[in-house]
């Protein structure tokens, strides 16, 4: 049976009808974007940091096998067990085996997009292992049986009454509680005993450092440090693209990450794990799950530079006004729309159309991924692989949403700026971008798509 493509437009329509949720979601994410801008303006070296981050990542991706081997050798020297998982299934098996060996029945974990990608809870729980998400937003989503709707703030689409309802059902708190401090306290009180009696802990990770065999976890709530230090058994799961060469390179990335994500200069906790604690055991699972294939895709490999800051989501008028869940995928927003089709081209074939192509995502990306160009290239790929009527229909849905919603239309206009310089006029004004049809955009190079495409590709190959 063929999988059905996600109906993003329809799911977004439902979200758009809920005015209070929509308004908060839109404003909250825009506020995060503005806080990011403030941080950017404080640092005169901001653009240089972005350029460095991009160069370091591109270099590392081009030397991925060597750096992964270097990481493995150093981590092993320090007493870390290193595992390699080709796909989601293997990742879950490895995690399951480690837990089984320790007869662990209760696993506490901090947020990890990779474990979401692998649907690890769905694998472990039928095997008798209770998995407790300890990040507040992630826990809310777990209790509500939903995927995270944002890579940094998983429950950003919920309002206080939604959280009160979920907690009342699970923590027996007052369903009419409206004080967020009391709700956060309820989470702390509920989590502590679970953390203190757990058998094993698990975290994701933001960076792997080849030079030292270190992995780094950047978080705010303290739950990742609790999950990793309390039980004596720490399993960390990271995608293979997370690696950087040198400890000193962290300076560049740590300075960019939280500023881009939340507009804070650093996360409350930046934790460097280089080996197990005294008497403890530490495992790192290096996950491929499609990444090595993506590295071979000429137009899309640079999406592997992503450090999951979420800035492209916060700035995207379509994401802000459709909500992460409408993407029907683990990764949502602009980055999701270019990553998801590499996991399942048919299922996620509609997502590259969920964009106004305003280029704002590309502008804010701390590692300079050409997100809006990749969205456009995905549309071309999908037009080649699918029926033209399908592509036309998705475009019409997109256009209908934008033009039919004055607020979204305005948001799209307001954030139309720079970045467009890289796209040829024909890409903006042809039938694949209905948005461009109705609006005169900043002037762009007069060049046909094909010559532009060829030139850029050749540039990349020669560069």
């Amino acid at each position: 049976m063929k999988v059905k493509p996600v109906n993003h437009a329809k799911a977004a329509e439902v979200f758009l009808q809920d005015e209070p949720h929509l308004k908060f979601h839109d404003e909250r994410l825009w506020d995060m974007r503005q806080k990011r801008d403030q941080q950017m303006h404080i640092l005169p070296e901001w653009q240089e940091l972005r350029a460095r981050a991009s160069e370091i990542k591109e270099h590392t991706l081009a030397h991925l096998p060597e750096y992964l081997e270097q990481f493995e050798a150093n981590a092993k020297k320090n007493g870390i067990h290193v595992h390699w998982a080709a796909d989601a299934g293997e990742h879950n098996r490895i995690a399951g085996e480690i837990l089984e060996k320790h007869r662990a029945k209760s696993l506490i974990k901090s947020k990890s997009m990779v474990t979401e990608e692998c649907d690890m809870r769905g694998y472990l729980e039928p095997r008798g292992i209770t998995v407790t998400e300890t990040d507040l937003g992630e826990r809310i989503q777990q209790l509500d049986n939903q995927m995270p709707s944002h890579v940094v703030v998983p429950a950003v689409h919920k309002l206080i009454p939604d959280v009160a309802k979920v907690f009342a059902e699970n923590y027996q708190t007052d369903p009419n509680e409206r004080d967020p401090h009391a709700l956060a306290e309820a989470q702390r009180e509920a989590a502590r005993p679970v953390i203190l009696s757990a058998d094993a802990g698990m975290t994701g990770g933001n960076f792997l450092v080849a030079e030292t065999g270190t992995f780094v976890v950047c978080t705010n709530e303290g739950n990742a440090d609790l999950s990793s230090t309390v039980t004596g058994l720490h399993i960390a799961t990271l995608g293979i693209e997370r690696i950087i060469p040198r400890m000193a390179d962290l300076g560049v990335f740590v300075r960019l990450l939280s500023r881009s994500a939340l507009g804070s200069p650093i996360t409350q906790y930046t934790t460097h794990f280089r080996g197990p604690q005294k008497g403890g055991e530490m495992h790192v699972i290096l996950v491929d799950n499609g990444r090595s294939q993506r590295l071979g895709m000429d137009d899309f490999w640079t999406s592997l530079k992503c450090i999951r800051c979420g800035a492209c989501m916060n700035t995207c008028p379509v994401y802000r006004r459709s909500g992460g869940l409408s993407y029907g995928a683990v990764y949502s927003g602009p980055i999701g729309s270019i990553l998801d089709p590499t996991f399942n081209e048919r299922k996620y074939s509609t997502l590259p159309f969920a964009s106004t192509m305003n280029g704002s995502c590309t502008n804010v990306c701390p590692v300079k991924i050409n997100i809006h160009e990749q969205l456009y290239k995905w549309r071309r790929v999908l037009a080649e692989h699918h029926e033209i009527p399908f592509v036309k229909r998705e475009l019409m849905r997109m256009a209908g949403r934008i033009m039919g919603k004055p607020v979204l239309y305005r948001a799209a206009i307001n954030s139309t700026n720079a970045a467009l310089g890289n796209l040829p006029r024909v890409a903006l004004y042809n039938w694949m971008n209905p948005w461009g049809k109705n609006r005169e955009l900043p002037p762009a190079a007069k060049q046909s798509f094909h010559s532009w495409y060829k030139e850029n590709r050749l540039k990349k190959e020669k560069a």
Partner: protein
Amino acid sequence: MNSREMILARLRSNRPDPDVYLLPDIAILGDQDRSRARFETSLAGMGGAVLERQGEETLAAAVARRFPDAKIICSAVPDYEGTLHIEDVTSPQQAAETDVMVVRAPFGIAETGSVFLSEAQLNHLNSAAHLAQHLVVILSEQNITANMHTAYTERQEFHTAHYGVLMSGPSATADIQGVLIRGAQGVRSLSVWWE
């Protein structure tokens, strides 16, 4: 072929030309001010506080003044007694009863108001720094580094510690309708005491 070899082989055949993408030099960018004033401003921005010395008072007196209800004060430094010493804490479960933990950081970062702690400061009970309700961190002005770049290039701890955490203020969350809450799941407050 096992997964490791399969992944590495696929990466070798799929990667872009390695000779094209060079590794840039190590970056030392940004403001090089490593003053106490800059550290304090950054610390406040992250929700941390300075435990100000009133008159000639000792650390013990300042802790008692700041945390009048504290019953268990766990000291991880030799020059301060508290109600018990970290060497006498044998499990995370016991550490979880701590009201205030006092610890000395080997260095701080002016750009972010961060303090560094590792197993060397925590007698290998790393969870103690997160299970306590409040944290008091002793820091010397001499040991402030300017920013993240200088921290990673100057400080050897990043190459030696098994567990090294940069704590920048107390734990925090904004996961419920965007409201910033200081004191999430780790320490509820973090104060720096200058020595």
